[in-house]
């Protein structure tokens, strides 16, 4: 059945709550309203207010109370209304969730999932468009996943909920209704920690994640048709810790690597991807490792002219692949 990206997310929660009565949802407006994007639509009616909790407006408590419940043995799914608003909860996520297993020498652990809509292109301005993943992508103990399509959205969320450790799950808000796919009827997961090849190709390797995978696929199709350029696309899926083997393999495959993120460039997740390649397969490269990313400004502005300037879109990707192919 055709499902949008956001329906896939909602279905994953619904099915996991059916499967395991320890799974519950907490966050702002997730209950009666069903979430500001309606990701939790219908859950309140189905599972009741005890398992779909409208919390006070306090992200550190949402994370911290969730962490407590997870340590007790429940499986909280905490929603941050926008990824931009996860920042008040950083201390709970980084000092606490990420370190509970390690600091207790494996005595305690913290199986919490924290969902947050991220990304721009929806006139969300500086504080409703951010890619915030880089801020967390240096903290061992955390896992960070970002699905690029409905199939992965469902499978990665199920995997996150079932994972024994804290998982940050960032979902691209522009993908919510843009991306649709037929999903299997049966239960499945997409394993955390494994990147996925989304397109086979010979000339240029694109490594990316999130909504950029979609744009990269579109660009790749056009380049194949129009220019005869064959693009290999690796979707990171888990952006922390990275799947080094898949990255190295993908880089070696073509010897020309384009790394793409919607985030601003300096200090992005793509820096680490580049460093892995430069460390492990430098001599397999035929071109400098290119990065295509947002400009190094604080966040995506509101005005459509500026938003467009910021965003990585199909046209920019197409150009970058073509330039690299011609290198």
């Amino acid at each position, binding site marked *: 059945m055709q499902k949008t990206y956001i329906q896939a997310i909602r279905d994953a929660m619904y099915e996991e709550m059916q499967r395991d009565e320890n799974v519950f949802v907490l966050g702002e407006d997730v209950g009666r309203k069903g979430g500001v994007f309606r990701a939790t639509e219908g859950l309140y009616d189905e599972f009741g207010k005890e398992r779909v909790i409208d919390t006070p*407006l*306090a992200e550190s408590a949402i994370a911290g109370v969730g962490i407590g419940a997870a340590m007790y043995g429940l499986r909280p799914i905490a929603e941050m209304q926008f990824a931009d608003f996860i920042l008040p909860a950083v201390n709970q996520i980084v000092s606490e969730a990420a370190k509970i297993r390690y600091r207790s020498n494996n005595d305690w652990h913290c199986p919490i999932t924290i969902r947050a809509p991220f990304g721009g292109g929806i006139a969300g301005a500086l504080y409703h468009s951010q890619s915030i993943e880089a801020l967390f992508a240096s903290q061992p103990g955390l896992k960070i996943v970002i699905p690029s399509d409905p199939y992965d959205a469902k499978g990665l969320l199920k995997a996150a909920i079932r994972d024994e450790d804290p998982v940050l799950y960032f979902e691209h808000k522009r993908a919510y209704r843009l991306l649709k796919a037929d999903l299997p009827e049966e239960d499945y997961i997409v394993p955390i920690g494994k990147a996925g090849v989304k397109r086979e190709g010979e000339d240029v390797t694109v490594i990316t994640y999130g909504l950029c995978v979609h744009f990269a696929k579109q660009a790749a199709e056009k380049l194949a048709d129009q220019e005869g350029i064959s693009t290999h696309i690796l979707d990171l899926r888990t952006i922390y810790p990275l799947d080094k083997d898949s990255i190295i393999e993908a880089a070696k495959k073509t010897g020309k690597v384009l790394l793409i993120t919607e985030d601003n460039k300096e200090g992005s997740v793509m820096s680490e991807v580049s460093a892995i390649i430069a460390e492990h397969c430098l001599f397999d490269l035929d071109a400098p490792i290119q990065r295509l990313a947002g*400009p190094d400004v604080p966040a995506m502005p509101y005005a*459509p002219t500026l938003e467009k*300037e*910021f965003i990585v879109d199909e046209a920019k990707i197409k150009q970058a692949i073509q330039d690299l192919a011609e290198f």
Partner: protein
Amino acid sequence: MSELNRHEKLGLTDEDVINMYKTMKLARKIDERMWLLNRAGKIPFVVSCQGQEGAQIGAAFALNREKDYIAPYYRDLGVVLHFGMTTQEIMLSAFAKAEDPSSGGRQMPSHFGSKERRIITGSSPVTTQVPHAVGFALSAKMKGKDFVTFTSLGDGSTNQGDFHEALNFAGVHQLPVITFVENNELAISVPIEEQIASETIAVRAESYGMEGVRVDGNDPLACYEAVKEAHNRALNGEGPSLIEAVTTRLMAHSSDDNEKQYRTEEELKHAKENDCLLLFESYLKEVSVLTDEIYDEIDSQIKTDINEATEYAEKAPYPDPSTIHDYVYAAEEGE
């Protein structure tokens, strides 16, 4: 002075209350226009002041707009209008145009800021402005300046850690800062009883060793009085105050929200009955300050003002794409 006349007792002239009314109504009408523009697909987003103009105007008029600093929140259209923002400027921001004085079209509308008018630049994450206001108040104390800093936020936002940390700081140092909570008893869809564990928000003042006051936020005069007293205390070195104005949200949370998902017809009807603008209008008519003539004049002035502003803003240019890189840091050669 008639029994009914409450404003004179507060030291407000007829002209003062007409000005209050004018600004309230201007805020309301700008807001209404923005919804129309949004529904017509001309502007992407509105977050509304409707129902809270009374509280805003009452509070703002009690401040000194030549000296005081304000750190308002997104609903405070009434406050910033009183502090000198023009209709045209508001519209420029709604249309995300380069001339928007708050952000040059970089922020959503209602993220007010203007150094010239001492309106401290605001962001979207709630409550972050409260410690900033305390920092301004600390500066006043350190530098021996006689300004007061005013900050406002919603009821739900008082649950953020920053509220607690900032108000405690202000209380310890007895700083000249007024925290004004516009309690519309909703945070998007979450009603106050699921949001706030205390009986009232005003009682939280005791946690910070400051004066706490709860007033009818649908009544600008009550708000004026409470803020005026707080302002006096602040100037007299008697420290900070927390004021809770119990008010009304007349619209959905924002243009992206559908309040039918969580608000009953009953509740919506009740809200409409507490429309501060209509209540204040009745009062002003009752005390014979607002005549039909004045009413009509104000009405037509506002219409013209908004029409002109909208037209100007709609035509104004967007920021040039190349400016995206500007102002991340100070320019190399100093500012």
